[in-house]
């Protein structure tokens, strides 16, 4: 069951958040070698991991982080606007119905055995969250190595600008359009008949 973690219920999910930051460090810093801040040598946390962030976290029901993604409102500070505006050919898309997706992470030990299922589950949760909250578009800054994987979700996607070299990696920005039809398609493709969220999670 995917949990929706916001500033209202963060304390309840402290264990999952702890695991998420630790796994983010293992994936983004240790494996992908991104130059992003690490706290205590074990946790990857940046300036956007604030009270404003919403996290969708899949756990094992006992506090263990399995997969997660971070959602940020584009009407507040976020990666594309504050760090990578040059990735957009025109103005950075901003609006109350536009959010940003970042830090999509699967726990390293789960990748081989369950990576595909977890990835598909997170894509579905992101789409369901959008439909529940009136979000019609997501922006996303991605390393080009993940472009094919992201596009394989099958959403209405367009590039926002040409990718650029940043710290030795080719980074690009894309925009996804989400609608109730996107949710139907995701559920049908991945076999989810009902909500993927746990019944206690509130829509933010």
């Amino acid at each position: 069951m995917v949990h929706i973690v916001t500033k209202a219920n963060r304390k309840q999910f402290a264990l999952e958040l702890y695991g998420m930051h630790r796994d983010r460090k293992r994936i983004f810093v240790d494996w992908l070698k991104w130059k992003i801040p690490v706290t205590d040598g074990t946790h990857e946390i940046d300036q956007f991991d604030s009270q404003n962030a919403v996290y969708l976290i899949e756990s094992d029901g006992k506090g263990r982080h399995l997969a997660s993604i971070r959602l940020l409102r584009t009407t507040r500070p976020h990666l594309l606007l504050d760090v990578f505006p040059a990735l957009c050919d025109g103005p950075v898309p901003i609006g109350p119905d536009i959010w940003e997706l970042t830090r999509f992470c699967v726990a390293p030990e789960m990748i081989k055995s369950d990576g595909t299922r977890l990835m598909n589950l997170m894509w579905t949760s992101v789409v369901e969250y959008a439909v529940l909250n009136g979000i019609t578009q997501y922006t996303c800054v991605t390393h080009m190595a993940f472009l094919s994987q992201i596009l394989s979700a099958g959403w209405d996607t367009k590039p926002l600008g040409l990718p650029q070299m940043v710290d030795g990696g080719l980074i690009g920005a894309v925009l996804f359009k989400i609608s109730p039809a996107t949710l139907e398609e995701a559920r049908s493709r991945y076999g989810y008949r009902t909500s993927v969220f746990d019944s206690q999670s509130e829509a933010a």
Partner: protein
Amino acid sequence: MGTFRDVQNFVHDARSVTTLGNLHELLQATVQSFGFQYYALGHHASVAQDNLLQIGNYPDAWMHTLYQREYIFDDPVLRACQNTAVGFRWSEVDKLIELSAKQKEILACASRAGMGEGFTVPVHIPGECTGSCSFAYRVGKPLNEAVLPAAHCIGGFGFEAARRLARQTDGRKRTLGIVEFLTSRQLDCVVLVARGKSDWEAAQILGLSQDTVHQHVETAKRKYGVATRTQLVIRALFDNQLGFEDVIAR
């Protein structure tokens, strides 16, 4: 050439094509407007199975050689794709893998067929066999670095357009090259087959009966829907269940 507007136009047009033939026309026109002559997009294991994705305009002479001589196991570009998820130039393949004499010969062969410098965008989608989108110049034409970011986008969005069209045909599982996970025993047998061992030799090595080995291999072939052992090895290779080091020993 290679501007963001070019990418936007391609992405827009690729969404509305309804056949692989139309996608091919669009890709060919786009890559040629970027200065490339040739392109190839598809699953690497398409050499083994007709129903996997494969479109492009590589010279016939080169395609003939590739299929005829089982270069699939030695193609350095395909090998390099296993090691990276980011686009790379063919002239830099030696930075990604150590080139054997056979692999150097393949590069020379491609050159003799008229293909010069190239750029390949690997495609790694979890649960599917590996693929790529490659662009190549005519021999002698230098690489224009300025078009590479746009080429990377064309590769990614182009491959997804092809997958979308493949999904619409029958037998989605087959056309998308969905990974068929082999049991560890089946894999043990396939590895030995890849190394050129007979069922009898494999049986000796694994401590099984020859009949059991035969059954494992036949089951694996059925899982993939292939007719020959070579095709089976190719699929397992590009599904990452087998490593190149297992087939190099052939």
